[in-house]
């Protein structure tokens, strides 16, 4: 049937007035929270905090200003107005690792740079995430057979998201950032108990 021929006057939208506290919560549209409240009354506050924390964390990821090689040029391009990483609340590249919660390992990790990269990661306060960008940081890339390049930054620090490419285009960066946001959204007890869906 052609949707234009449906007589919309015959369809009545009925809305229940919220009476109880649960109904008022239902009215806010936080469906997962409401479902959690119906199923496990005692846990509602806990999972809500989890959700709020995750939302706050993924909405303002502040990367540390560190670039190791040519991938850092693409990082600059991602941060600039054309690709505009500020859409994800990431426009503030912090000059100090103490204020950052995300590190892009952007470029070749040489043997001499490796302890410095590790130190930078250890200086960041928890919670912290790492995105490994480019072939060099992922596996060593074209320098895998070299004497002076580390064969993957995951040998020294834990990595959350790998972005392949040499160097990856800003679109790939943004896709990787979205993957990390999904990961942060699904962490904690809320996701473990299936409440964040």
């Amino acid at each position, binding site marked *: 049937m052609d949707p234009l021929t449906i007589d919309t006057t015959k369809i009545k939208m009925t809305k229940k007035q919220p009476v109880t506290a649960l109904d008022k919560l239902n009215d806010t549209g936080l469906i997962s929270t409401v479902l959690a409240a119906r199923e496990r009354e005692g846990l509602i506050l806990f999972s809500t905090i989890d959700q709020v924390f995750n939302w706050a964390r993924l909405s303002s990821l502040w990367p540390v200003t560190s670039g190791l090689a040519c991938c850092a040029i693409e990082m600059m391009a991602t941060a600039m107005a054309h690709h505009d990483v500020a859409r994800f609340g990431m426009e503030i590249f912090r000059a100090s690792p103490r204020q950052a919660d995300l590190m892009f390992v952007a470029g070749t990790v040489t*043997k*001499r740079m490796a*302890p*410095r990269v*590790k130190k930078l990661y250890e200086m960041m306060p928890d919670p912290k995430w790492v995105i490994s960008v480019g072939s060099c940081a992922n596996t060593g890339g074209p320098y895998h*057979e070299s*004497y*002076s390049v580390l064969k993957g930054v995951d*040998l*020294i620090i834990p990595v959350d998201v790998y972005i392949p490419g040499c160097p990856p285009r800003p679109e790939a960066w943004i896709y990787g950032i979205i993957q990390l946001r999904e990961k942060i959204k699904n962490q904690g007890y809320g996701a473990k108990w299936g409440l964040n869906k």
Partner: protein
Amino acid sequence: MNPAEELKQLFPDSVVSVGLQIKKPLAIIKKEDLLNVAKKVKEMGFDNLSVITGIDYVDRFEVVYNFFSYTKKQNLVLKVILDHKNPEVASLASIWKVADWLERETYDLVGITFGGHPNLKRILLPDGWIGHPLQKDYDMNVEQFVTVGEDGEDIVSTDGTNLLRR
């Protein structure tokens, strides 16, 4: 007459042969006479020592000096051939200041000793590194890792203690 042939006329005993290397005049010099020839090269107006290259040919080492003259707009390549067991040649750091770092790099990666160099130590790799990586018999099976000590000094280890995740 190109500058390599000029050198051949000036030092007939020191210059082994002349030729061209990628359209640049090339002169192969006896390693004992390099310093004398280099002084003359500087007087000829080659004010810029662009790069020093060391090559391992398994049976011999070669060191290639690329010069450029900004006044004459000319190139010149000098080459010395060293024996493989004890690769040593005179340093040019007293004539061109830039030779200081270029020779340190050649020493660091190829392992050629420059006699009379003011400060011949590694420039790219940390001090404790074992071997010279651009030599053909460098052992690639032993991976070396660098960690930073308490005073900020580089510590070389083959097992990656304090660096690799357990």
